[in-house]
């Protein structure tokens, strides 16, 4: 695992799609990071685990 991926694992890697946007499926990313594709779920997990979040916006479509 790369150093960046390792560091990302100590945070919650979150793409900032919201509950309102659930009808539009998230374009998932391949790789070693376990991304959370829902911002509110990311927040809940951050609360539970005490981790900070790494929130990414990407417009690739």
């Amino acid at each position, binding site marked *: 695992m790369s*150093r960046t991926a390792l560091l990302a694992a100590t*945070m919650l890697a979150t793409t900032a799609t919201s509950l309102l946007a659930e009808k539009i499926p998230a374009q998932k990313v391949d790789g070693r990071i376990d991304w959370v594709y829902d911002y509110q779920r990311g927040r809940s997990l*951050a609360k539970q685990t005490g981790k*900070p979040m790494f929130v*990414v*916006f990407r*417009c690739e479509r």
Partner: protein
Amino acid sequence: MNGINLDLFQFEFDLTWMSFFMDAENRFYARYGGREDSGPESHLNRESLTRVMNQVLGLHEKHQVQTGRHEPSGRSRRTPEQIPPMRAMIAKRKNKCIHCHDVKVATLRDLRRGNRLRREMVFTYPTPANLGIAIDPRRQDHVEAVRPGTPATRAGIRRGDRIISADGQRVLTLADFSRVLERTPTQATLPLTLQRDGQSITTRLRLSAGWRRTPDPSWRESLHVVGPGCGLWGRRLSAKERRRLKLPARKLALKVTFIWGPHTRRAGIRVGDVIVRLDNVDGDLTIKQFNAQPMLNNTWGDTIPIVLRRKGREMTVKMTFPRQPVD
């Protein structure tokens, strides 16, 4: 961007990639992303990302979120769907997906409808380069170089200085600095705290009209909202093609490959024409830079001359832009 709270997530919407380090209470530690005219990935690299991640982990342990007055509140929920022109923009799309740049396009169109749009509004999220500061892409709180004759030189900023804060806001990255600049008025004095040789230094940058502009904003998707376009696409001729057509190496030479503007067809421009001058511009430009010219310098209803080569002959046509924007 569908459903995203714009009162919380504010960034350069002309970008295609941006990131934030946050806690579970919607507060920010740092921002990472942003770009300069030089390229979309000018300040995106593994070294700087790893560095800021380590810094954020340290800040998280101490609960040191950003607290400055430039932080968004996120309290009044505002989504892209609420920007009035957005509904019509996404109605035509099969997947109804709102892209980052759509947020800015819709915002500018809304301002234009209300006669509140100024061309300068396209220059969002200025970077330290606008002040004359080249940020080290790998250590983004360090000054790599200072351009002579700029606000940075006049404020005494030097190569190697570490930027601690801008207007009281912690700076770890280019995007952190850019966030403060976005909220800095057109005419302002910007306090900057630096570290040099272990000493803390405070200086002030004096900013005057026009400081937000950059030389080449052609990468900005939203540019077409602020001025008329030529309604065509093309490509820059290769050196070999220029030699064959006896065109100079460092002058404008764009072969038209596609036309979509009715005003372009009315001007008599055809696919295959080679454009060698646009109004008073004949410097070597990419197609994006070419299309940006009238958007930045002309207004709807203007008529400009375009010089082109067709089958070995040079000719001048006149292009009249639509009288009103066509959304």
